[in-house]
């Protein structure tokens, strides 16, 4: 969907915050960030929702809130909405618990506990094993390396991984990755459906037009269902 996250090429978003460019800024600047990240990973590991649902949830934020909030507020919005809608924890329960707990005191840079519970060990194992997303393909890839393609004019209001700035743009297949699970099927149906994935090369002129600032090449990873032969 062309939600507030679909930012490639948008004007008026502004300059990079110079605070972010200072040396020595930690990647998690506040303890809440690491904790939100960790509980999201845990909810996914426990099967409450999947990563594609979590990404899609962020895309449903109000544009003004998406652009004005701190980054992990996006994760909070999505995770809280999913847990509410799936019946795990309601928004009202969170409101109530906030009133009970008052101002939080989160430890920055926690130590790894001496003894890891089975669940903690499971989470560490997931960090180092990952969750591969490739699948056996039912059909071979349609497009060969070097094939000329054009991105379809896809404007569905549901989840996909097609940056809107690539709609209708001609490109060339640079790599075949094999099939990966389709993000839309995962987000909306919670199923693993294979979709052939390609690395596609575009020129800056084809993407942005003749007034583009300079000639450069741009690569994006796009599913077969987003492409057609040129």
């Amino acid at each position, binding site marked *: 969907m062309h939600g507030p*996250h*679909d*930012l490639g*090429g948008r004007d008026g*978003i*502004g*300059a990079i*915050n110079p605070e972010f*460019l200072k040396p020595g800024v930690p*990647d*998690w*600047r506040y*303890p*809440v960030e*690491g*904790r939100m*990240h*960790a*509980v999201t*990973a*845990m*909810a996914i590991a*426990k099967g409450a929702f999947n990563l594609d649902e979590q*990404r899609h949830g*962020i895309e449903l934020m109000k544009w003004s*809130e998406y652009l*004005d909030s701190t*980054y*992990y*507020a996006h994760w*909070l919005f999505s995770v*809280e909405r999913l*847990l509410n809608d799936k019946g*795990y*924890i309601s*928004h009202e329960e969170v409101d109530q*618990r*906030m009133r009970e*707990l008052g101002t*939080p005191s*989160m*430890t920055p840079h926690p130590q*790894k*506990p001496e003894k*890891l519970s089975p669940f903690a060990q499971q*989470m*560490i194992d*997931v*960090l*180092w*094993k990952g*969750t591969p997303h490739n699948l056996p393909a039912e059909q071979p890839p349609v497009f060969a390396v070097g094939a000329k393609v054009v991105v379809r004019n896809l404007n569905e209001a549901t989840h996909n991984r097609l*940056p809107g700035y690539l709609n209708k743009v001609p490109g060339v297949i640079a790599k075949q990755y094999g099939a*990966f699970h389709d993000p839309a099927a995962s987000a909306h149906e919670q199923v693993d459906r294979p979709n052939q*994935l390609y690395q596609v090369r575009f020129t800056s002129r084809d993407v942005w037009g003749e007034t583009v600032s*300079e000639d*450069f*090449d*741009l690569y*994006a990873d796009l599913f077969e269902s987003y492409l057609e032969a040129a």
Partner: protein
Amino acid sequence: MDWLSLADVEARVNALESLMVEKGLAEHEAVDAVVASFENDMGPMNGAKVVARAWTDPEYKQWLLTDATAAIADMGFTGLQTEHLVAMENTDERHNVVVCTLCSCYPWTLLGIPPAWFKYPQYRARVVKEPRSVLAEFGLILPDTVKIDVWDSSAEVRYLVIPQRPEGTDGMTADELVPLISRNSMVGTALASSPQGT
């Protein structure tokens, strides 16, 4: 729901974690363990080891360029959000820069958690349209003879830039080269440092 300020987000996440623990979706100490793992065990020191090995071992560099997923697995760096990897080398003619315009996809095991500038809207909107001027905001001015390739990580494949090995590093071992390879140089918003620090 007035929740956008950092203080409000902290209060809400605190409440959410408390409830998730009660409902069996999380454990407090496991949260500490995961945070500690990200902060201590995942980070650009891992990516720097991969790059330093590529600089000092031509066979490994070829492997990294043709099958980065297998090449980093060889060093034990496969993991969450780094299950599928492509590595691109900077040359005298080409400079690579990586973005995730749709969110913040990033190779966690190799580079750690993405920095704020990578995750917030401004970089994501502009680097796919005016990369040279965005790199200049990072203090990276490339000669006109260097062409830029921009990589939008729109699916589950992650990208690692292999910066050029700096001048004046002949004879240095991989371990000695590691400190020259910054996180930003592996995303494409900086070059690797020379031994004199210039």
